[in-house]
């Protein structure tokens, strides 16, 4: 049995740097507190090298050149901790949530899946890097030894069984985070390393430092034994970002959304999942509106303080670039009403799409690309004007509904090939429906239409069939009652410029139309054309 401990050094800093990868090579400090009493609470190694100390005020820290000062972000720390747990669950379901910056993974039984312990540690380091984290990983058969070694040694450390005390010997006793008074006592004794601590006699140590001293001694010898406290796997994928300055335009907002999507998609990928929906919530800066509303005596601002949108995906996805394009299209069509100060993005996880295309299936649009194409089309013509039509259970003329376009791939249907098959019946004459129906002026003789004129055509009726009466849904406001006619219209020849612009030739035109008399509005309309 072996345990791998994963430790994130400078956790608060890394939580911020994770959403701003450009800061990775820079000196960064985090400040906390209410202005103007903000103080430095965390720093990275680069900041320590240039002499930045903890507890400096913001104005003092600002004196250092090339120092990046950021506010501490609790939400970013929560997201980073969730990402750290996702990293553990990506290899094993047995994970201990030891601290915000540390987890322990049980490696028992993973050898046949991933290989040796070193291979697993390398895999974890690689996945952590994909999640935007730089971690220390230590593998040992003793859980506490793994934890302390991860805190003390950078990179990957694999401690063979029996060598725990020897490997921990070189570490300073600060890795155990002892209480300040014990640390001071040990300093006075000249005990600074684990090796020196392990050599102290246990009984005398117990007499002087109590149970805490005994525990430190056990840790230093690598002899401490305890069971794992397992964390229950959760499927919560959320990322948050508080903005220092409100984002007013889509471009900078898309940049920030891209970062959050990258983080979410990396976490989803680590768990071998995809997202079937994204919930987006913006905190809005309504200070300008608030002033205006106070002037107008309007108090309904609470509703305007946040903006929520749900992006439902019909195909589970985890491609952050594609998702960003979709989010941008949705935000373009329905933009927030005020500048954005806070971004919350959550993904609803779903199993990723697994398809095995048949060799004999015709090519079809890539589902993820199709989703993007449909969103772009909806941006051009409107949501209600893109999709797949289907008939509905009604006798109402031209009644259909638009559905979301989700082409099904049915391999069995391909076998029913129609290519080359002799067609016994004639093709059905297609109809074109005018939406809305065109208003027409119809002259009747003996109850039959003999002349018709409407915006694009006028002429004699050469032949007519009708009236075909339909009516329905009399109980509704939009009831219909109409008398339909199929008419062949002979348009007299047109001449001059008008003929060149609106028709292809100056010859007499004949066309087949379906017209109807609306009994309710007592008017004639052209429903469409046979073509």
């Amino acid at each position, binding site marked *: 049995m072996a345990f791998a401990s994963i430790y994130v050094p400078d956790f608060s800093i890394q939580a911020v740097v994770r959403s701003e990868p450009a800061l990775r090579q820079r000196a960064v400090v985090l400040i906390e507190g209410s202005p103007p009493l903000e103080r430095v609470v965390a720093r990275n190694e680069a900041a320590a090298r240039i002499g930045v100390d903890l507890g400096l005020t913001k104005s003092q820290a600002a004196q250092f050149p090339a120092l990046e000062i950021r506010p501490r972000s609790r939400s970013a720390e929560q997201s980073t901790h969730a990402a750290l747990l996702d990293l553990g669950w990506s290899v094993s379901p047995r994970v201990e949530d030891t601290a915000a910056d540390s987890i322990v993974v049980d490696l028992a039984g993973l050898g046949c899946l991933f290989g040796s312990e070193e291979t697993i540690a390398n895999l974890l380091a690689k996945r952590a890097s994909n999640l935007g984290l730089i971690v220390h990983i230590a593998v040992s058969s003793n859980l506490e030894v793994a934890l302390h070694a991860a805190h003390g040694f950078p990179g990957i450390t694999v401690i063979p069984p029996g060598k725990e005390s020897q490997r921990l010997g070189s570490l300073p006793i600060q890795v155990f985070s002892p209480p300040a008074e014990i640390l001071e006592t040990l300093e006075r004794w000249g005990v600074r390393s684990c090796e020196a601590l392990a050599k102290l006699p246990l009984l005398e140590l117990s007499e002087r430092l109590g149970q805490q001293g005994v525990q430190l001694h056990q840790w230093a010898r690598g002899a401490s034994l305890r069971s794992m406290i397992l964390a229950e796997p959760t499927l919560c994928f959320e990322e948050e970002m508080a903005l220092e300055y409100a984002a007013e335009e889509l471009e900078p907002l898309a940049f920030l959304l891209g970062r959050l999507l990258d983080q979410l998609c990396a976490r989803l990928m680590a768990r071998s999942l995809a997202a079937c929906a994204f919930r987006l919530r913006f905190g809005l800066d309504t200070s300008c509106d608030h002033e205006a509303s106070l002037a107008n005596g309007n108090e309904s601002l609470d509703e305007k303080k946040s903006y929520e949108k749900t992006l439902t995906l019909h195909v589970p996805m985890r491609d952050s670039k594609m998702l960003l394009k979709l989010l941008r299209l949705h935000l373009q069509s329905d933009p927030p009403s005020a500048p954005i100060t806070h971004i919350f993005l959550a993904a609803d996880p779903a199993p990723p799409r697994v398809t095995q295309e048949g060799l004999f299936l015709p090519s079809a649009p890539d589902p993820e690309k199709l989703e993007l194409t449909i969103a772009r*089309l909806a941006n051009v013509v409107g949501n209600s004007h893109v*999709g797949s039509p289907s008939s509905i259970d009604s006798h109402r003329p031209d009644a259909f509904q638009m559905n979301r376009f989700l082409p099904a791939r049915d391999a069995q249907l391909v076998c029913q*090939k*129609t290519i080359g098959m002799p067609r016994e019946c004639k*093709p*059905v004459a*297609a109809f074109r429906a005018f939406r809305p129906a065109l208003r027409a002026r119809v002259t009747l003789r003996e109850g039959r239409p003999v002349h018709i004129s409407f915006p694009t055509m006028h002429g004699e009726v050469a032949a007519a069939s*009708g*009236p075909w009466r339909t009516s329905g849904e009399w109980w509704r406001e939009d009831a219909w009652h109409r008398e339909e006619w199929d008419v*062949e219209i002979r348009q007299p020849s047109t001449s001059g410029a008008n003929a060149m612009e609106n028709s292809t030739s100056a010859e007499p035109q004949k066309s087949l139309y379906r017209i109807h008399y609306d009994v309710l509005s007592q008017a004639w309309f052209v429903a469409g054309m046979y073509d």
Partner: protein
Amino acid sequence: MAVNVAALRSQLETALAGRVPAPFTHRSIQTGTAPFNIPEIDTLTGGLPHGGLTEISGPSSSGRATLLVSALASRTAQTEVCGLVDGRDTFDPYSAEAAGVKLERLLWVRCRNIDQCLQATDLLLQGGGFGLIAIDLSVLPPKTVRYVPLNVWFRFRRAVENTSTILLLLDQELNAGSCASLVLRLGFEPPYWSGLEAQRAPLHSNSCACLLDGSRVHAELVRSRLKSKIGTKKFQGFARTNQTSLVTGPVASFQTKTKWSGFTKTVIETK
């Protein structure tokens, strides 16, 4: 002169080396054809060319939509995904379904003007993977379609080149020019009415006795780059239509039926 031509050719090949592999080698862009599922038209044209632009033009009621739904029915029956860019939102799902179009495999984009049509077509072509993309501009005024620059059709043709997508353009007059691999011109022919004599009888006759049974679609092959393939097939001949213009290309015609024409026969037979 021959030496000069050879030298010029060699010079061009050297200049284009690395960019164009074989500049003087004929490159076939068609990857095959797909049928309309109308035997007369398939015999005339050889089918719809994959990776090419097919243009069908004609006046109102000449059968453009009938050919469109027939092509859509043919492609969707093969589980291909089709896109329809509808220039004026005139597509009728009921008659399409009756013609055999699997509506669940049809992406219908209901446009309001020519700009939306061109944008939507661009997006569908970029998306890729469609078996057939139809652009129906036949209800838009010819003047509007005429103003579409030729380079747009050229761009569309290049977008489908070397793919299996069929690009079908329907309009009132020919606009795509040499960009189209197959060009068909349709003409109006008088429809079939059952009981028309009864209607034309003296007054008080029952007009319901007259019923629209269908029509005849007349097609003229204006241009085809698949001539070598269809050259061996029999056309119905070179004919003169009922219109005043003289037909210059091979022609074919076929009969259509209305949705109810078969139904009435069935009812009569049952009785």
